[in-house]
């Protein structure tokens, strides 16, 4: 190959792969989403926007949008807040920083599928460690603390823990329609907040100490004031990034749902990626799956474009 045409040889493989693997699928999904295509059938019928109308109206899909929304709107704020909280605490320690950092980062490294199965064990209604521990706390000082009966105007027997203790009736967690989605959220938060923590720790090292000292001299006496006036604004770019990446990751939740709940009970954990898998791959309703894919892509693109917009507006004050 001549040096003059080197760039062609260098760029061509990447360009071809981008076109075939990343761009063509979007076009294909877009096209199929207006059909009732299924694998094995030669043709496909054009059904117009019927698939999209179903997503907007059919109860299965409104439940899908609902559980996805609950998951994203729970996991993102909580895991970002916990990540920030952990980072601030760890950053202000005199010793033990590396130890906590390592521990909180462990779930990020471990295969989520494996850890989901372990959580299922721990949350097993009868032999699981969580309910065993909760039951063991009944009748001891643990109950008197956590049934909140020591608060004024609270009847300990009527609170969640007091009630569960009295009737020995602890949740079935993943098999209970009132708890399943929250349990899946909890595993998502457990897995992801260490990642956010590490990003925030990196963000914190970028804040010059002189700035905090200057703020203190200018009258920001309390730690909260300094956080509000200096640290939080300086972390702006980190926060934009952390929120974006957490959102995109939570939209893609699949492993925990597929391994633990199959979208149930009563479709309360029927998130989008699982819906695509179930409709398209298991039931061979490719057209329907394609339209969920397009809706999914619109959400993700929207989030990323908002992020780009915020970054370009330079969300920081440095």
């Amino acid at each position, binding site marked *: *190959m001549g*040096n003059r045409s*080197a760039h062609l040889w*260098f760029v061509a493989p*990447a*360009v071809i*792969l*981008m076109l075939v*693997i990343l761009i*063509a*699928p*979007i076009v*294909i*999904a877009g096209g*199929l989403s207006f059909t009732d295509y299924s694998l094995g059938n030669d043709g496909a019928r054009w059904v117009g926007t019927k698939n999209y109308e179903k997503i907007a109206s059919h109860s299965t899909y409104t439940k899908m949008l609902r559980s996805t929304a609950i998951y994203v709107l729970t996991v993102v704020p909580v895991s970002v807040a*916990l990540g920030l909280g*952990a980072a601030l605490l760890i950053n*202000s*320690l*005199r010793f*033990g920083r*590396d130890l*906590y*950092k390592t*521990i*909180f*980062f*462990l779930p*990020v490294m*471990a*295969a*989520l599928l*494996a*850890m989901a*199965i*372990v959580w299922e*064990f*721990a949350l097993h209604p009868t*032999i699981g460690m969580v309910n*065993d521990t909760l039951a063991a706390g009944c009748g001891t000082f643990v109950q008197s603390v956590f049934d909140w009966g020591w608060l004024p105007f609270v009847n300990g027997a009527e609170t969640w823990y007091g009630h569960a203790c009295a009737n020995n009736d602890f949740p079935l967690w993943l098999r209970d329609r009132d708890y399943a989605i929250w349990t899946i959220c909890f595993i998502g938060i*457990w897995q992801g907040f260490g*990642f956010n923590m*590490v990003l925030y720790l990196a963000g914190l090292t970028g804040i010059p100490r002189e700035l*905090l000292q200057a703020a203190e001299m200018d009258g920001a006496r*309390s*730690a909260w004031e*300094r*956080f509000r006036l200096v640290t939080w604004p300086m972390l702006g770019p*980190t926060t934009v990034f952390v929120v974006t*990446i957490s959102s995109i990751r939570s939209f*893609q939740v*699949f*492993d925990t749902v*597929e*391994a633990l709940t199959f979208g149930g009970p009563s479709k309360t954990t029927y998130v989008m990626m699982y819906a695509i*898998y179930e409709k398209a791959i298991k039931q061979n309703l490719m057209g329907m799956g394609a339209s969920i*894919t397009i809706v999914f*892509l619109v959400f*993700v693109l929207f989030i990323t*474009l908002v992020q780009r917009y915020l970054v370009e507006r330079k969300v920081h004050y440095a």
Partner: protein
Amino acid sequence: MIQAHHIGEGWKHLVLILGAIIVILPFYVMLSYSFKSPGEIDRNEGGFFGAQELMVDERCVVVGGSREDCSFLPVVFNYSKAFSEAPLLRYLFNGVVVTLSIFLIQVIVALPCAYALAKLRFKGREFVFGMVLFCLLIPVHAIALPLYIMLAKVGLTNSYAALIIPWTISVFGIFLMRQFFMTVPDDLIDAARMDGMSELSIVWKVMLPTAVPALLAFAIFSVVAHWNDYFWPRIVITGNRDLFTPPLGLREFKGDADGSFYGPMMATATIIVTPLIVAFMLAQRRFIEGITLSGMK
């Protein structure tokens, strides 16, 4: 450091330790159950390591083994079953082949492209770079369905190729390497050209060595993502156990498991999770750098 004198150091440790206990809990459960006998798991006793009393494998007795031959320490039983009940070694081997192939192909595709985008002038360069930026917006998992249809059409599902092909192009890798190559001085490249090196050997002999730290971080990023990936293998590998990656193997194990197989299943989980955790412990800084690489966009 900021507000150390306000909240006592002790309170912070208390909060962090409580958090750490919740974070570690499933790891503890996994390891502990992988040591214990089925009875101990059911009754939730035996502490962390279990009593390790000899247990009799009833299945082994049924197929004609004597009771002595069929007695094992629970820990030995669990880990040997993990390998004998399912071809776990095969799964691990598949995991290694797939993750390494993905990484190597990603580098072979991305590095020359990144070099061209950073250091060569040609018509359409801005266009190609724009395409890279656009593709950064697309999560591959999200377009799994059309990719699956394409692979099915050419008859490639249930193959190593199906596991690898969608990941051969890492636009993120291109972007990252391009940013890195921008910082390499032009003089270095000009000197290499004077020495008569071809552009191709400049990429591999001049640029690659300067990029080792970035490449290492990218390697960790890529390997962790694909060793742990479950969604994509679940979709393209249907039934053919010889092609299972470690997470698929574990999932299959869970599907088959009856009550007495919790121990071996936890042993399998431990075996799958351990390589990355150990590597992470040994090279923490590098791993955190690698995993949070996407933070540098």
